[in-house]
């Protein structure tokens, strides 16, 4: 069950994100008051991987960019869900070359001139599946300019390097609940524009992008899949990756 962050049709959160905690808790208890054997857990719908740091920035110096949420809100929701024996899942998107600076893991970080200990989603959610958005934005990965630790400006980041970063952070933070989301949609059949560069690519390009996740992230025991709203996309990819890589998509 998805816990909504936004109001319907209005780009505003359903409650003051600085931490009223009433609306979302009431919403949760409303759902939990209905007996359903199908309910396995909850999904936090705000996908921003920076949803805590911007809260800190706004509270500390009135400069945080929306959307954000008070980490205490997530902590309260998490406790309520776990008390019922249910799971709490988050699938943040983190199209970034600096995964370590996201709110997926806890970290010490300078905000508004001082160091703060910012909590991470991995502390509240049972499972976190990170969206690389490589499928939607391969041209961003190919053309992005960034500066490495030696101060050298580099162009391009591969999905493999991005997954290695994620694995390294999991190791250094001693985290075992952060995984990768496998992404694809109808463009595997029709082709379409890359979301970031808005350049059109044929369907073969998108099929290969989707199979890259199998190649780079096949080692993860838990996976989440994004496949548009069409289950056939995932069936198609299963056959395609099996044929080209010798390994199924699912």
């Amino acid at each position, binding site marked *: 069950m998805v816990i909504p962050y936004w109001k319907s049709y209005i780009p505003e959160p359903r409650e003051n994100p600085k931490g009223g905690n009433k609306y979302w808790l009431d919403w949760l208890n409303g759902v939990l008051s209905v007996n359903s054997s199908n309910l396995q857990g909850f999904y936090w719908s705000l996908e921003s991987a920076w949803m805590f740091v911007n809260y800190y920035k706004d509270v500390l*110096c009135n*400069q945080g960019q929306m959307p954000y949420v008070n980490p205490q809100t997530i902590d309260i929701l998490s406790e309520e869900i776990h008390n019922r024996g249910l799971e709490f899942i988050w699938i943040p998107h983190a199209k970034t070359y600096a995964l370590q600076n996201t709110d997926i893991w806890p970290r010490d970080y300078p905000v*508004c001139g001082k160091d703060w200990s910012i909590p991470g989603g991995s502390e509240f959610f049972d499972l976190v599946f990170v969206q690389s958005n490589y499928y939607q934005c391969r041209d961003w990965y190919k053309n992005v*300019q*960034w*500066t490495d630790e030696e101060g050298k400006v580099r162009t391009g980041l591969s999905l493999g390097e991005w997954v290695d970063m994620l694995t390294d952070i999991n190791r250094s933070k001693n985290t075992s609940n952060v995984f990768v989301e496998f992404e694809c949609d109808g463009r595997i059949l029709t082709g379409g524009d890359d979301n970031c560069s*808005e*350049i059109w*690519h044929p369907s073969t390009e998108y099929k290969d992008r989707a199979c890259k996740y199998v190649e780079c992230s096949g080692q993860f025991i838990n996976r989440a899949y994004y496949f548009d709203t069409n289950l056939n996309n995932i069936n198609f990819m299963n056959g395609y990756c099996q044929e080209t890589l010798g390994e199924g998509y699912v």
Partner: protein
Amino acid sequence: MSSFLKIMAVSLCFLIFTFPLVSSNVKIITQGLPPTRGIHVSVGTLPNSNIIFISTGEIDAYDDVWVNPDTEIDWYYYVDPSGVRFLGAECYTRAYSMCPRLNLNVSENLVRFRTKAKLVKGVPVNDSILFNFGKSAYKVPVSEILPYLWDKSWVEYLWGYEINDSLIFFPRITLEIRGANFRYQNCSIENGSVAVIHLIQGYNVTYYIKTSWKRSKIKSEVIDQYELLHLLKKPIYIFFYNGTFKAFKVGGINCRYFTVLATANNSTSVFISPSFYYSNMVSPFGSANATYSHSKGANVTFPRQDKHEFWLLAAILFTVAITCLLCRNRKNM
């Protein structure tokens, strides 16, 4: 020469000299800036303090992330009667290629220069802005300030604090520049193999004020590239007043161009798209060299250099056209 024209010149020269040897189709496309991309700059202070705090970043509204966190930078300044001191910057991501590489300890500098300050909103009274601190008050003529503001609407949102019988004040606003409408200009040059597609871009410039986590729009307008270049010539200023008015420039917004190469089906496309970034204009611990009297910056005119660049671009396009025609004639012979 602007980086855009450098890219155009290099790309076009490459095409001109390699064109007879190239068998695939090549397109150079100046790509528009969509409404989901641009830059934001917010001016304020650290809470209840004298430290000027400017927060900047590229807007990249992908899903529910409205800015690109990899590009977020916070800039800190200290102002006194002698001028502005740059105390350092904090990048959300040190790996951002535009993150300033400075040997400045931001935390130490903030401790050293930070003092308590009471912020007061300036109230327009007749032709002046009144900053009333109770025991003291300052009236600054609007005509002194206006030449340094991007828009006269900012006059309503000036905030200041008092230090050593002087007033420091600034526009406490967030400005955003995003792409708006764009159309392809009918000046493409094609001969079957090479095409240069030029674009006319509009930009949406919006000013906001922030209250709690919400923000309110002050003004929004769509302007063309010429008007934007004109606007970007004007830096962001912090003001000083003790009977004498001084404007200190702290930073400006610049434009740069990215190229994206895409190859598909025997054709190559070079996409050139603009992006914006904030650049600091104050030397670390610098002082009087950043001071400008109001007589200097009052009349901002479209610089001659940009006119030169326009004619240079026209000359390049003309050269390509001639080359294409010659090549076509040679093929037809």
